[in-house]
């Protein structure tokens, strides 16, 4: 920090990277998985069948179901099935419950029959963990947003530190211990740099109203509601008139939406005051129809006479930029190929963080290689590295094992799944404390490999929807999950086998290697 600008930036890169690396690894890992949130949810609820999509028919079935089971509810909420998520779900506020207290049911989109799907949080768990970290509101969001800022800082300081960014991009020296890690860290970091910059900056934009509210307060004073109303159009709740009137069939209103915007995909439909003179029906467009995210968009109808009462939307440049950032981050618009690209970019981000953590430690361990003992702080970092990386992978696999093995009717089943995730993660921390570094890596990676590679088998045995079935009927979400789990298992097995072997003693080579010195001066 006392030396030149670049050294100061390298110092900042090293230490912010170390302190936030473990957290960022988990955030990136679960965020990457969230690009396949719907597919994961589908895997975790194998009871929900894949049907041909017919939104009008699904709406009709949902309306019949709600008419029968919740005729007096103040509002209905219908989530339509789509190409990635086959479930049709309906929900309504519980009588006498709080504002967020809902009864929800999953229906078969072809018959309208109630489905008894296992209770699970599915892909939603990893999605929520990615930005809330299972912490009480709003602390998890604050912490993950700050971590995103540190990621952005790490990228910028990394670019400043890394002076020969393009020359060294083509430099990769495998099998050279510490130097291979640095080359890998640099190559992946630079290759996916635009994605990394976008993903970390956009996460700040997503939560900007929460983390940077000063300008809202300066401009709107106490009336923060006014700001959101200006942006998204006020979504005022219409009071019930108290006189009964039949609700129009929803497929009829759906046809009107299709007249307005042919081919529009819908995400959900909300009915306010069903069965009342003042019924209102809101159709929300699926976010995948456009890149820029748009809140409060859609169509609002009078539910009794069917007139359109649409709301206006600002489409000014700043709104489009911030909505675009949001949309790019979530990637809901992405088709299968782009979605896989997102997934691999996310994995690359995870790898950059992981290699950075490994390097920090490796570099410092070299100095203690001869004495054979390492100081407490290095041992601490080693344990945390192991638990935060291989331990997390074991925890995630444990979640899916629990999903298949816990009894269907278990009280609080969804919570037990997440408990298994945290329990195995915590156990891996204990294991890392008890075993020596390299051995701990090897054992955990090996165990992780078994768990991941075993998932397709477990799925086939417990649900009868294993790869032989899913590939045959073309259930790509199910097959894709199983194949990805298998590939992850193989990758972990490869990593474990590397760790089982005797370590490459880079310490012996270090004095000889003159070019290594140059790089060493860049990052410490």
């Amino acid at each position, binding site marked *: 920090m006392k030396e030149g600008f670049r050294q100061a930036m390298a110092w900042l890169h090293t230490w912010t990277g170390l302190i936030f690396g473990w957290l960022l690894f988990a955030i990136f890992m679960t965020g990457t998985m969230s690009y396949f949130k719907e597919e994961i949810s589908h895997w975790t609820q194998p009871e929900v069948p894949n049907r041909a999509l017919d939104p009008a028919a699904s709406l009709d079935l949902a309306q019949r179901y709600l008419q029968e089971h919740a005729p007096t509810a103040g509002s209905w909420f219908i989530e339509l099935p789509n190409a990635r998520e086959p479930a049709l779900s309906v929900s309504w506020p519980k009588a006498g419950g709080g504002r967020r207290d809902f009864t929800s049911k999953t229906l078969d989109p072809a018959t309208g029959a109630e489905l008894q799907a296992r209770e699970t949080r599915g892909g939603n768990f990893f999605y929520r963990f990615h930005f809330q970290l299972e912490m009480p509101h709003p602390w998890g969001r604050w912490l993950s947003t700050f971590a995103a800022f540190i990621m952005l800082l790490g990228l910028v300081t990394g670019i400043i530190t890394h002076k020969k960014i393009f020359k060294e991009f083509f430099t990769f020296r495998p099998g050279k211990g510490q130097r291979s890690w640095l080359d890998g860290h640099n190559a992946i970091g630079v290759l996916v740099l635009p994605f990394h910059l976008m993903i970390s*900056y956009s996460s700040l*934009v997503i939560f*900007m109203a929460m983390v940077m509210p000063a*300008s809202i307060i300066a*401009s709107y004073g106490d009336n923060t509601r006014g*700001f959101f109303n200006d942006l998204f159009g006020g979504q005022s709740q219409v009071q019930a008139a108290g006189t009964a009137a039949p609700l129009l069939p929803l497929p009829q209103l759906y046809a009107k939406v299709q007249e307005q915007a042919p081919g529009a995909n819908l995400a959900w439909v909300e009915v306010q005051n069903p069965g009342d003179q003042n019924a209102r029906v809101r159709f929300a467009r699926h976010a995948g129809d456009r890149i820029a995210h748009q809140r409060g968009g859609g169509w609002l109808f009078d539910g009794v006479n069917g007139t359109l009462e649409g709301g206006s939307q600002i489409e000014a440049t*700043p709104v489009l930029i911030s909505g675009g950032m949001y949309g790019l981050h979530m990637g809901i618009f992405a088709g299968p190929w782009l979605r896989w690209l997102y997934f691999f970019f996310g994995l690359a981000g995870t790898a950059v963080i992981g290699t950075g953590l490994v390097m920090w430690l490796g570099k410092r361990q070299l100095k203690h290689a001869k004495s054979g003992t390492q*100081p407490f702080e290095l041992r601490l970092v080693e344990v945390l590295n192991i638990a935060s990386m291989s331990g997390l992978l074991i925890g995630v696999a444990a979640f899916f094992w629990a999903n298949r093995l816990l009894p269907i009717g278990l009280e609080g089943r969804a919570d037990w799944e997440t408990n298994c995730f945290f329990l195995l993660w915590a156990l891996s921390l204990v294991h890392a404390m008890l075993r020596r570094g390299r051995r701990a890596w090897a054992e955990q990676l090996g165990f992780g490999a078994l768990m991941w590679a075993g998932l397709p088998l477990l799925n086939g045995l417990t649900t009868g929807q294993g790869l032989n079935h899913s590939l045959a009927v073309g259930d790509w979400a199910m097959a894709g999950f199983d194949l990805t789990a298998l590939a992850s298992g193989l990758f972990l097995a490869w990593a474990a086998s590397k760790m089982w072997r005797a370590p490459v003693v880079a310490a012996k080579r270090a004095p000889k290697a003159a070019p290594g010195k140059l790089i060493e001066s860049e990052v*410490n």
Partner: protein
Amino acid sequence: MKSKAAGLPISYRLAVTSRSLAAVFGGYLLAAMASVCITLLLPVPRAEAVISGMMLSFLFYLVAFLWCFACRSAWQAWLGVLVPSLVLAMISGLAYWMKNP
């Protein structure tokens, strides 16, 4: 900055702590003041100005953070975030007063 962590003098550690505080809190203050200033000065509708201010504020935070660790001393780090914050606050105050006399 080799890993001689145990041998570092206490004054050095205090200076690093001070810089970190300046970066996290001072930097945030600077970013917030910048976002307010941009919001009040941009000649676009209110909601859009707010969004622009919020989006740009993170760049100020970033630069403030870099400054706090790039400058020569911890005192400079604090001065470098507090003085611009004060200036931005005064400009914002003026702009606010002209809008709401």
